[in-house]
């Protein structure tokens, strides 16, 4: 039992803003005062300190074939030593971190949940093995659907029951959490060296278009009532002028409704918010996207904020990765995966004096600032935009125009004409930024017990050495940055795991997965699946992940 005394609490889900209050923890949950015996409690004096829910990263690449190939191809990344073996594991990595390092660094920062944003269903066991090796945090993985021949087939047949059954089956088989869509149709086109450019381009060899893939998957997702919405990485990622595709894709959510959450989450939008027709007249389309998102009540986005320095691009968007390889002349890994999906990896770096990189950096911030705080979550699309360990930088930037002005001086001045960032006066409040990093991502993902400090919530709590009542967020940004960088306490499932940025205890969190099989009749699709497995290189009976193989699975049943 734990008693966090006198903290200054910000808990947006429960509409608590800067209230001095006590939090009580029992059996890993937040409980009312009446349920605990104060004498038996470990007491944390949080006087004058900020108490918030543990951070929730809704989109990062933390486990599976992509990041692991990234590690393999970049030994220079692994030379940064973060922890020497002893009571805790050795942990290393500059931006690409080892599994222990991922858990440790999130925990040090007060983050307690992170979602792997893309796993090929056929390789999910690998993704889960890595997730199981990440200590400290809760996690889950999103299987990808947007280029899977079986998905195309269901949509070609316009058979929603089949599609729903397939989605439910595949999420169960991959022990996944939701429906990720990456460059729908484009990755299949890449198998012949192509891509799709418009929502209405036909996918080579199939009678489907990206528009249909997205729409049908939203429909299936909503009829299944999954906790999370469709999670979309749009077409044309990384291409100048792509903000129009993004706008069109966002509009596909019109006509769908869900009381609890959005029906479409568009991810790492920074990479999909470019105006212009080439890298020469490249600029920001962030304002238009933000305006559209603000006008709709069923779409959310996350930033995909680039951080200057090293990064590694890794996505299921294989054709984009090849384009990036040609553009940069950099190392390139690619993985065409059965008839399901693909992926690519290319090392990159964001340089402040590079006009394109400066604009990308500004676009991320524009999106964060111009989009309503209830609709944009904070991410770097780790490790695509850079390290998650710099979330405090983004938080501080969103809250301080002065900090942005200082940073704007250091970057290529092309941002002045190509983006709106210099003229944006918005300063998000602490309440908003806490929402963008806790309660909002939890709501977007459909995690009811995460991202808040209400009764019944998981006791994932971060305490920062920052008195918000006495902090000038506009001017004291350095202090704000430092405070969020190193949590004074990180509490995971009721246990103190970090104190002043030092690891105290190694714990292993749960892996959430969603079981929607009760919502469908699997038989409507199983014959197709069986027929289609002749094109797989493994047996259907050996496909998928059993719950008992996972370290700490937690099934969320959709009924």
């Amino acid at each position, binding site marked *: 039992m734990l008693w966090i005394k006198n903290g200054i609490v910000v808990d947006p889900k429960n509409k608590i803003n800067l209230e001095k209050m006590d939090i009580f923890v029992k059996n890993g949950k937040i409980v009312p005062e009446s349920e605990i015996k104060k004498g038996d409690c470990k007491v944390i004096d949080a006087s004058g300190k900020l108490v918030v829910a543990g951070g929730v990263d809704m989109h990062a690449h933390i486990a599976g*074939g992509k*990041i*692991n*190939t990234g*590690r*393999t*191809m*970049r*030994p220079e990344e*692994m030379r940064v*030593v973060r*922890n*020497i*073996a*002893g009571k805790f*594991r*050795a942990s*290393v*990595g500059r931006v*690409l971190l*080892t*599994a*222990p390092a991922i858990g440790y660094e999130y925990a040090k920062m007060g983050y307690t949940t992170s979602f792997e944003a893309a796993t090929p269903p*056929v*390789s*999910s*066991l*690998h993704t889960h*093995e*890595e997730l199981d*090796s990440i200590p400290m945090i809760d996690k889950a993985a999103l299987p990808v659907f947007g280029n899977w*021949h079986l998905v195309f087939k269901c949509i070609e047949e316009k058979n929603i029951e089949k599609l729903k059954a397939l989605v439910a089956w595949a999420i169960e088989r991959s022990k996944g959490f939701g429906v990720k869509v990456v460059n729908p149709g484009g990755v299949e086109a890449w*198998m*012949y*060296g192509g891509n799709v450019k418009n929502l209405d381009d036909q996918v080579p*060899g199939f009678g489907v278009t990206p528009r249909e893939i997205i729409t049908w998957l939203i429909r299936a997702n909503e009829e299944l009532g999954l906790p999370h919405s469709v999670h979309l990485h749009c077409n044309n990622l990384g291409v100048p002028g792509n903000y129009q595709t993004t706008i069109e894709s966002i509009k596909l959510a019109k006509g769908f409704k869900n009381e609890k959450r959005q029906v479409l989450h568009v991810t790492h939008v920074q990479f999909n918010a470019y105006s212009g027709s080439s890298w020469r007249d490249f600029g920001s389309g962030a304002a238009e996207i933000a305006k559209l998102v603000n006008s709709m009540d069923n779409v959310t986005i996350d930033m995909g904020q680039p951080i200057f320095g090293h990064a590694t691009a890794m996505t299921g968007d294989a054709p984009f990765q090849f384009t990036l*390889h*040609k553009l940069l002349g950099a*190392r*390139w*890994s*690619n*993985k*065409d*995966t*059965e*008839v399901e999906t*693909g992926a690519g*990896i*290319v090392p990159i770096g964001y340089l402040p004096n590079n006009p394109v990189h400066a604009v990308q950096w500004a676009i991320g911030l524009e999106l964060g600032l111009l989009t309503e705080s209830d609709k944009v979550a904070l991410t770097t699309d780790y490790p695509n935009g850079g390290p998650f360990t710099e979330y405090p930088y983004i938080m501080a930037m969103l809250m301080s125009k002065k900090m942005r002005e200082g940073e704007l001086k250091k970057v290529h001045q092309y941002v002045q004409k190509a983006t709106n960032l210099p003229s944006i006066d918005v300063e998000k409040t602490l309440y908003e930024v806490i929402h963008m990093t806790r309660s909002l991502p939890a709501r977007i993902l459909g995690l009811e017990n995460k991202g808040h400090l209400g009764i019944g919530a998981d006791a994932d709590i971060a305490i920062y050495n920052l008195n918000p009542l006495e902090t000038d967020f506009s001017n004291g940004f350095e202090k704000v940055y430092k405070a969020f960088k190193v949590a004074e306490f990180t509490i995971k499932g009721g246990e103190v795991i970090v104190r002043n940025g030092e690891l105290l205890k190694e714990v292993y969190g749960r892996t959430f997965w969603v079981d929607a099989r009760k919502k469908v009749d699997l038989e409507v699709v199983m014959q197709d699946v069986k027929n289609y497995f*002749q*094109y*797989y*290189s*493994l*047996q259907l*009976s*050996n496909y998928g992940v*059993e719950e008992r*193989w996972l370290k700490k699975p937690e099934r969320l049943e959709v009924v």
Partner: protein
Amino acid sequence: MQDIVCTFCGSVCDDGEYDLKKKSVKKFCKLGSSKFAEKERIKAPMIDGKEVSYEEAIDKAVEILVNAKRPLLYGWASTANEAIRLGVILAEKLGGVYDQCASVCHAPGTLATIEEGVPGGTLGSVKNRADVVVFWGSNPMEAHPRHGMRYSISAKGLLVKDRKQRKVIVVDVRPTKTAKIADIFIQIKPGYDYAIFSALRAIISGNADAVPSEVGGVAKEKLIELADIMKNAKYGAILYGLGVTQSRGRDRNVENAIKLVQLLNRTTRWIIWPMRGHYNVVGAGEVPAWEVGYQYAIDFSRGYPRFSPAEFSAVEVLKRRDCDAALIVASDPVAHFPRIAVQHLKRIPVIQIDPYPNMTTLVAKIVIPSAVYGIEAEGTAYRMDCIPLRLKKIIETNYWTDEKILEEMLRRVEKFKG
């Protein structure tokens, strides 16, 4: 039992049928059948040839390992990921060296990946899409007997429906069994893979004029013909083997092949992939990559991982007499390492964990028998293309699994180290 997963080669066929009565397997090749056949086992744990209990053997092994200044922990390609993970953590806690069988097999491909990445695909993409398959220095008919049928040569796929729709090319220094069933066999001079990859790149990028009339024993016209086939493929795959990684040029050969594939992707689609040998040699690299950042040749003497095949690969460590104890798991370095490396293994205390007696058993001070994954034990392995498959337990055994043995070792080491 149906859909048994084979734990012999990197093809990891998963369609076997096991007959519990006959204790034999159907559908698998000669190699797979040999895996599932009954054979001589190490009967009990032994110290200096004397039978002891598992606990005694483990206690003694841990004593040797914690007292070593630099223990080498080698093998890992024929065990499950669960055991490998414990092995990596054990190496980390002991301040030893972790290395795995790839270092004498396909690790040059990892070095090439460091240089250029690896534009690849799964075996399913070869089966379904590849209309041209090039086996370069690889001989699946002997090393991966069902590869051709299941995934590459005659596999029936979605877009490439049968053998007739697929062109199979073998590039090798000798007419191998695979060369016999290829459409085109190109015989090259040993040690000239790199030069030939360079020549093909030059031809494809419009610099054929620079290429002399013969390269590595192959006439220029023949290279132009090969380049044409490559350019005109819809979806090609170079599947390379030890002919490339173990000969002159090693990783540079693979690097150059990858550059060729990068170039080909500018006009069509090609992938390249290694024909990995042991059933879980991929896991033996992937697991340490996520645990400590590197695939092999990892030294923990400073308490954090460092990578340097020039210093920390098992052969270099042994040649330099740079380890004072060795834990060998699921491997037989005495049979497969050069003589000078074996000499050092004879000098130092060797602890072996393996189901079967082999040449390493003959030099080991401590021998700990283990269960066979895929027959007597369950676990996870990664096929040559990194597709994960779950190995099944078919029959009961009293042998401890590698996982259990290593878990016990780790527990004792942690206790010892405080």
